[in-house]
């Protein structure tokens, strides 16, 4: 068939005539292409900003002050444990900075303290509200409280952080295993491929959810257990794509040339085939991250996920379902989830375009 040949020649000529394009390193070019997608570019900045901010959640939303000035000395309650007696109180236990008595001591006689913007941690119970819990937004709890009187804003900040960290680690582990398995199958083919394929069929037919329920009852549920369990099953879908790319790629001339150059198997796999097989990996990356966020959320929603006290978006949603009239629970969680998932998808889209070297 006829391809519009003049167009390709025009592209070549154009590339040759712009000197700026010639002197850019491959990384710079990819970054250039990434920036060209405005939506993804801004999403990346917003997402990074919010994520980095959430990494410092302890400084944003905490029931302990950042800095206390007491009798001409400085204290850092966020980092260190101080007894109430240190501040002239009665108990040997940690000072409760939300307690009126302690607050009085720390704000009079020339003492002062700097508190975080949202003076609640994810476990702090707010006693300010005059209404029954869950209490609607007020001047103390800007997003209201949940059914145990904990500040929703604080739980959202910590929950968001946990979800993202969980999703990114799960994606990294799952993608790494998936790529490796796909590479081995596709590159060596034959018996290796046959064995792996049968293994995946058996492994893939295991009921994942039942296993999760069983393990949740045997072991203490924790975020690490979830990462391990979900990684065990999460690599299979991806390995199929990488395998297909490798099967296709290993017969191409540039792989044969690399063999003729005397390159070792691992050199060919990592240097030649892998970069050219990453398109499906990168295409799926944002969806894997958002899928992992959703997986954690839904497991928490079902009560199979993280232990009860852990801040989690899924748990908030399930509270929202039980308290339908408490709109601030479901609506705020919904907003956080949709915002995060949407930005991830925009970033993924831009990333995919950036890594396509054939794009000018």
């Amino acid at each position, binding site marked *: *068939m*006829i391809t*519009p*040949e*003049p*167009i*390709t*020649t*025009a*592209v*070549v000529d*154009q*590339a*040759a005539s712009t*000197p700026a*394009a*010639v*002197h*850019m*390193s*491959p990384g710079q070019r990819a970054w250039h292409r990434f920036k060209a997608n405005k939506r993804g570019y801004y999403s990346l900045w917003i997402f990074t900003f919010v994520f980095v901010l959430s990494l410092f959640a302890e400084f944003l939303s905490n029931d302990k002050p950042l800095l206390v000035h007491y009798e001409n000395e400085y204290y850092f309650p966020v980092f260190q444990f101080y007894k109430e007696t240190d501040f002239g109180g009665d108990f040997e236990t940690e000072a409760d900075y939300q307690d009126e008595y302690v607050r009085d001591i720390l704000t009079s006689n020339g003492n002062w303290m700097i508190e975080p913007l949202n003076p609640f941690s994810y476990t702090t119970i707010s006693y300010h509200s005059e209404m029954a819990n869950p209490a609607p937004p007020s001047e103390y709890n800007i997003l209201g409280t949940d059914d145990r009187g904990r500040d929703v804003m604080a739980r959202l900040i910590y929950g968001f952080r946990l979800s993202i960290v969980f999703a990114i680690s799960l994606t990294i582990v799952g993608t790494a295993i998936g790529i490796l398995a796909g590479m081995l199958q596709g590159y060596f083919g034959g018996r290796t491929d046959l064995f792996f394929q049968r293994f995946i069929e058996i492994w893939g037919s295991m009921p994942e959810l039942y296993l999760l329920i069983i393990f949740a009852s045997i072991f203490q549920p924790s975020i690490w257990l979830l990462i391990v369990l979900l990684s065990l099953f999460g690599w299979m879908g991806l390995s199929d794509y990488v395998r297909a790319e490798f099967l296709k790629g290993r017969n*191409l*001339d*540039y792989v*044969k*040339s*690399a*063999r*003729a*150059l*005397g*390159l*070792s198997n691992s*050199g060919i796999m990592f*240097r*030649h085939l892998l*970069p*050219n097989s990453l398109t499906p990996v990168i295409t799926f990356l944002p969806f894997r991250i958002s899928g992992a966020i959703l997986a954690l959320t839904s497991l928490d929603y079902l009560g199979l996920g993280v232990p009860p006290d852990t801040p989690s978006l899924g748990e908030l949603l399930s509270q929202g379902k039980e308290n339908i009239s408490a709109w601030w629970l479901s609506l705020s969680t919904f907003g956080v989830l949709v915002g995060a998932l949407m930005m991830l998808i925009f970033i993924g889209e831009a990333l995919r375009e950036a890594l396509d*070297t*054939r794009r000018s």
Partner: protein
Amino acid sequence: MSHQPLIRVKDLSVNFQTADEIVEAVKHVSFDIQEGQSIALVGESGSGKSVSALSILNLHEAGHVCYPNGAVIYQQQNLLLKPEAEMRRIRGRDIAMIFQEPMTSLNPVYPIEKQMLESIMLHQRVDRPAALKLALDMLDRVGLPDPARQIKSFPHMLSGGQRQRVMIAMALSCKPKLLIADEPTTALDVTIQKQILELLRELQAEFNMSVLLISHDLNLVKHYADYVCVMNKGELVEQGDIQSVFENPQHAYTRHLLASQPTQLVSASNQERQTLLKGSNICVYFPVTKGFFKRKVDEVRAVDQVDIELRQGETLGIVGESGSGKTTLGMSLLRLQSSTGEISFNGQRLDTLRESALRPLRKEFQVVFQDPFSSLSPRMTVEQIIGEGLQIHYPQLDAVQRLQRIKKVLAEVDMDESALWRYPHEFSGGQRQRIAIARVVILEPALILLDEPTSALDVSVQKQVLELLVRLQQRHQLSYLFISHDLNVIRSISHRIMVMKQGQVVEQGDTRTLFSQPRQAYTRELLSAAMLNHQS
């Protein structure tokens, strides 16, 4: 009526709209197609010849194309302005088209019968039995053996030549007034090519139709067209009768094209030289298995007991049609394909070495592939591509020395240093092939296997690459194993030639002797199909 041309293309321009610019693919082209005439559009890739031809049928993708000026007049009507519905009636019935790639222009999921009857019933408005009879007649006419049985088969069951015959039968079944043949034989072997072109010529006379032949191959055009239009970069630079254009070209570009035909670039080889590569009794058999337990029922003898010898600084051309085993033989000699038989390189046995022991030796024998698009890793820069071999075989070099060598070899293949940071897709086919050559030459090998290195290139670029290869050979005392289906190219670069057919060596000898006194019938057939002038 007979003085009126069948189709008149007047001042045609075609523009393609891309995301950020307008590409002028065809600029102010005018030519007439007379009834019963065989007219050829020749030019290199990107010259706009296919685009012009597709415009006659208005087959471009709507939305991306616009015709700023010009007209295609057929029966006093401008086809460019016709609504799509009316064009559909003209396509196939009045003007038919056959394409280059017979593999993809037939739908693989339907049998031939269904595809042929569809168009016959649509255009001729006949019932099914009549259409079937017509289809069988047509298939018989184009020389498809046993049409009653073959019409039931699926495209993959036919060979390339047979498929192209089916395409022709389909195109001609509605007795079109004009047949547009876009590189109809480029994908076929030379002997098949000749048969198809002769068939086209017979049918043209029989049906009194016009043929618009689009080709890059001047040799073919010269033999099969009456009138020729030479195109370059969207412009029609010269047109006229075959005889006058070929014998007395007016335009500089036409002269350049004619001069680009490969000429003899090397003289006879020196018999005294040392043997570099020797293969004896090389066999590659692929088992044909059947049933659940993969019982071996037969074997395909891709390479069958071949003896081969290559001397230092010499080019051995291996020529044959597709499936003759020439590439498999080449790959076996470099141990890129498992085979049996003895291979020795510079006196050292290669066939007994393990892959890991072989790897350090690979520096000495390198390979350049046919398709410069797939042989360069698309996600590596030119610097990485060329430098990769150095990292393996010359690990003692530091980054600065490596870059120096890369720059030196780029200059040797006539490429600019600015290429270093660019990716393969930014280069034309010829430039990519230069990069592929630079990648192997930088290792200073003794032997390079060239597997159809110029087949994907335009004729003028082809000549430049061949000249480059000869220059490098003389400078570095390289030995080449040159695999090609193109006798013209093989003749221009080889000292000795080996003709292969179905895995076996038919004939071998000096280039000159082989071309002037071929001993075997098959060699003679190949030579006549290639339509070479017996010069030299």
